[in-house]
Every structure is written in structure tokens, then in C-alpha cells.
């Protein structure tokens, strides 16, 4: 067993980078604008599906299709956002789960459009298969060739992907850090603190909330695209509500209202989630391999509850601020 195989950890790091983008979307919606969106995964689904359908069915070039994918995610954000920004937080939370599940069921049922339960493999019907991410693989290949002049044989498409994902994540973090500190971010923080006060000084609360929701939707869509390219194939099952919960976990692990804690949260989450795949040592080796899968999910749940009890403010959070919130 080669626990430190770099190729494997490259993969884990790519996934962590994608999670950063995903969680950043929630950060904008929840931590900045105070919208508890539990259906974030719907934006991923819509973007990924739009992109794949356009590439496979309409033979659109990948970049154009990707842009349409993001547009679709933002459009879904509008559709959900316009009515839902006025809901009370607890109703919004449940309504957004419902919206996310609706998107997933539609992806399952509209087989003529989405390939049905088979996912992107079935886009052209049961017997034909065209991959949507040839263009992306091409890009990574070219990038890794370009990199090989610098890195030599260490340049692989996987590392190119790592580079792409993390530079994107880093750039987005930087952009949103700036946005958060810009006058725009100031208004959003004010809205999170007290909507009435923000209204009283002439800020259109609903409009700002909607902007945050849409930005979050775009980020969710981007994460969906990256995931689709990274995995190569996706199906409706990939967009279960669990993924949104994971994104919230990342926010909480890092520290709820800390933008720069998102990568930390994503790293911790990835380590936890990947690390539990290695639960084969003694005494767990005595348990049969099938039961270990249940033990693994059990321990994910257990660690989550434990973490919430011991360190509710997250790794980088400030406990006092947590209490100030109430």
C-alpha cells in the first residue's frame, strides 16, 4: 500500500479545490447575505447538464457551452431567488432543499433531454456515447505539455488540472475578498447584520440579496462544471442534497464568516472524507470490508457531531463572535 502516492493526493487536492469554489458560493449566499440555501447543489447540476447537453447534442465548443452552463445556473438562481428572498430563514432552508431535489428528479425523469438516470452517458440514447469533456482533456494535455518545459516529466494532465483548479479557486478567493471589502460587500454585511438598518439608509435589500444569490449560483455552477470535467461522467445521483451539506461543513470547519478559512475547511473536509477510506488498520481490519463502509459513514457523522460540540466556531473562527451573533 502506497499511502503517499502523489497521484492520489493530487486527485484529492483537485477535489478540495473544487470544494473551495463550491463552498465559496455558499459563503457569498449564507455568510455574506444570510440566505440559508440548502439547495446549492441544484446550481451545479444545472450548469453541468447545460454544458454537457450543448457539447454533445449541439456540438457547441466547450468554452461557449460552459458559459451557457453558468448562465443557466444564474437563470435558475433568478427563478428561485425572486420569490424566495422574502421567505423566513427556516422556510427558505426547507424550500431550497425542495428546489434542489426537484432539479435532481427532473434530471432523472426528463430522459429525452438529460439522458435520464444513466446520466451524461445516456445523452444520445442508450447505445451511443459521446464524451463532453474531450475539449477539456485537450486543454489539460496542451497545458501539461506547456508545463513540461518547466516541470519536465512531472507535468501530467492531472497536475495541470490541479493547477487550473487551484489558481481558479485562489483567484476567486482573491476576487471575493476584494468584493467583500468593497462598498458592495459592506452593504451585504450590513444586510446580514440588520436588514432594517440597511433599508433605512437607502439600500435596496432584496436587490443586494438577489445579487449575492446569483453570484453564489454562478460559483455553484462553476464548481459543477469543474466537477463534471474532473469526473468525466455524471448522473443525477451526483447531485444529492448531501453535497450541499458537505459545502456547509467546509464553511463550518474553517470558521463560518472567514473567507480565507474556506481552503482550510476544504482541506480538513477532504482529509476527513478521504482519510476515512483508509480505515483498514487494526482493529477495524477485523470488520469485514462491507461493514467498514457503514463504519466509515458513521464516523463521518460522529466526527461532525463531535466537532460541532467541541469547536462550533470552526478552526479559524472566534468563539466570541459566534456568541455575538445571537
Amino acid at each position, binding site marked *: 500500500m502506497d499511502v503517499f502516492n502523489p497521484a492520489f493526493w493530487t486527485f484529492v487536492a483537485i477535489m478540495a479545490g473544487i470544494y473551495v469554489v463550491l463552498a465559496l458560493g455558499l459563503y457569498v449566499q449564507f455568510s455574506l447575505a444570510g440566505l440559508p440555501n440548502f439547495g446549492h447543489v441544484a446550481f451545479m447540476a444545472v450548469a453541468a447538464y447545460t454544458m454537457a447537453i450543448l457539447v454533445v447534442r449541439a456540438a457547441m465548443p466547450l468554452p461557449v457551452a460552459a458559459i451557457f452552463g453558468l448562465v443557466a445556473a444564474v437563470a435558475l438562481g433568478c427563478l428561485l431567488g425572486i420569490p424566495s428572498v422574502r421567505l423566513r430563514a427556516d422556510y427558505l432552508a426547507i424550500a431550497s432543499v425542495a428546489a434542489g431535489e426537484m432539479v435532481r428528479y427532473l434530471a432523472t425523469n426528463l430522459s429525452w433531454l438529460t439522458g435520464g438516470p444513466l446520466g451524461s452517458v445516456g445523452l444520445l440514447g442508450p447505445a451511443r456515447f459521446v464524451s463532453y469533456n474531450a475539449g477539456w482533456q485537450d486543454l489539460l494535455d496542451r497545458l501539461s505539455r506547456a508545463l513540461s518545459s518547466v516541470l519536465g516529466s512531472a507535468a501530467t494532465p492531472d497536475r495541470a488540472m490541479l493547477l487550473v483548479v487551484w489558481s481558479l479557486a485562489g483567484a476567486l478567493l482573491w476576487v471575493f475578498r476584494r468584493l467583500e471589502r468593497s*462598498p458592495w460587500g459592506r452593504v451585504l454585511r450590513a444586510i446580514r447584520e440588520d436588514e432594517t438598518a440597511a*433599508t433605512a439608509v437607502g439600500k435596496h435589500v432584496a436587490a443586494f440579496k438577489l445579487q449575492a444569490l446569483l453570484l453564489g449560483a454562478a460559483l455553484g455552477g462553476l464548481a459543477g462544471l469543474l466537477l463534471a470535467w474532473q469526473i468525466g461522467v455524471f448522473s443525477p445521483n451526483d447531485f444529492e442534497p448531501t453535497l450541499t451539506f458537505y459545502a456547509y461543513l467546509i464553511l463550518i470547519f474553517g470558521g463560518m464568516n472567514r473567507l480565507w478559512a474556506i481552503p482550510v475547511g476544504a482541506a480538513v473536509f477532504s482529509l476527513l472524507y478521504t482519510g476515512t477510506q483508509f480505515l483498514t488498520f487494526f482493529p477495524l481490519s477485523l470488520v469485514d470490508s462491507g461493514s467498514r463502509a457503514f463504519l466509515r459513514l458513521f464516523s463521518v457523522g460522529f466526527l461532525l457531531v463531535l466537532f460541532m460540540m467541541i469547536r462550533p466556531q470552526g478552526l479559524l473562527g472566534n468563539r466570541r463572535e459566534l456568541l455575538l451573533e445571537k
Partner: protein
Amino acid sequence: MLLEVRRLTKRFGGVAAADDLSFDVEEGSITALIGPNGAGKTTVFNLISGFLRPDHGEIRFAKRRLEGRRGDIVARSGLVRTFQTPRVLTRMSVLDNLLLAAQDQPGERLGLGWIMPRRVARREREIHARALEMLDLVRLRHVSDQYAGALSGGQRKLVEFARALMVMPRMILLDEPMAGVLPALVLQLLDHVQDLRDHRGVTVFLIEHDMDVVMSVSDRVIVMDEGRLIADGPPQAIQNDDRVIEAYLGPAAQSESSGKGPRETPRG
């Protein structure tokens, strides 16, 4: 007339919080709105400032119809309010609280900060300067970097006051500006209110319970009780108005003695 209110009515359930109210507020005046608890004063403020939608009636501000408009639109048109319990943004710095309230910052439009960073920065500098000026005015510059949540109630009132001024209002609605403020600060605030009108040309419309304050600063007093307007006039006239006294203290009691004599209360 800067503000004209006509036949304003708002009911909650069966209770009329504002019942066919009509009054004006003159430009450049300090007008007080008083009345016993539950008279509907704050409701009137909420109606004027767009936080509530009237059942019927008209509100004109600078000749523009305002009734039913959203609160932020009302504020941007130059009519800004404060709250009874100050609504400062507790987890933002005092300075940020003020910066937030400035209008015409292009950086509040998503993306404009990237397209025209210079204009944003220039405006931000202007706003910043103005905010410091306001903080100087309310003598809070020394706490400008602190979380607003760390301030005392009286200081919060001042922050909210300064924040309202950042909007550059033509008229400001102050909901009990003196409540919970230390006596020393009350005088200071009084000065600010008068200064507003005298030097900045801002019309002031305030709800206040401290009658000393009301009588000493206001040009005119409007008295409400149970949603209705019961008196409207200069302070002296109001002070001696029977209806007003009755509204506050209740009607002169008919059955005076309950038969029990005064008691000596044991006091340590």
C-alpha cells in the same frame, strides 16, 4: 411645506394605529411628535419612512408622493429615519457603519468597482472624509475602529444619528433620540439637532418623551393619542392643553379616595 400628510390611516387587526391623520412639517423647522405610549407615533414614522404601507391616505415629501414606496427609496429621496432602539450594525466598525450610509458610491454596484476603480476610490475618499467629519461632530472619532456592538446605548444613538446624516437628508426623522442617553450626552445631542436645522438646513421631525427636550428645541409640537391627532401648535400652547394633559395622565379621576389612607412605607 416639505412634508404633507393627508388622511393617513393604518389599522392592525381592529385597532387603528393611525386614524385619519393630517399634518404638515415645514421646511427648516424642528417639529416634535408626542403622545402617550401606544398613541401610534412610531407607526406614523414607519408609514412615512416606507417601513409600513398605509391603508389609505397620502404622504408627500417635497411634492413627491411617497406612500407605499419602499423604505430604501424614501431614504434615497432625502427622508431618513433613526430608530427607537438604535439599529447599529454590531459586528461592523463604527466607521463602516457610517461609510455604509453614503449614497452614490458606484462601488456598491456589483462589478463597477472593477470597471472604474478610480471613481470608486475617489468617492470612497470623499465618503471617508465626510464620515470622519461626522464622527468628529458626535465626538466619536476615537472609537471609529471599534465594533459598533461594543459601544454603549447612548453612543449607539450617536452613531445612528451620524449615520443618518451621512445619507445627506433634507429631513430627518428621529425616533426618541434621547431615550437611554446619559444626561450629559442629551445636551450634546440637543445641540446637534439644533445645529442640523440652523447650519445644515435639515428639517427635523422627532418623537420624544423627554418633555424638557421637546419644549426647549421644537418650533412646533404635534400631539397624538390613540392614532388620532389631538393637538398641534407651539410648545407653550401644548403644555397647557387640557386634552394633552388628559391624554398623558388620564382623565381627572372622579372617585378619588379608595378609603385607605396613605401608608408609611418601610424603607431601609
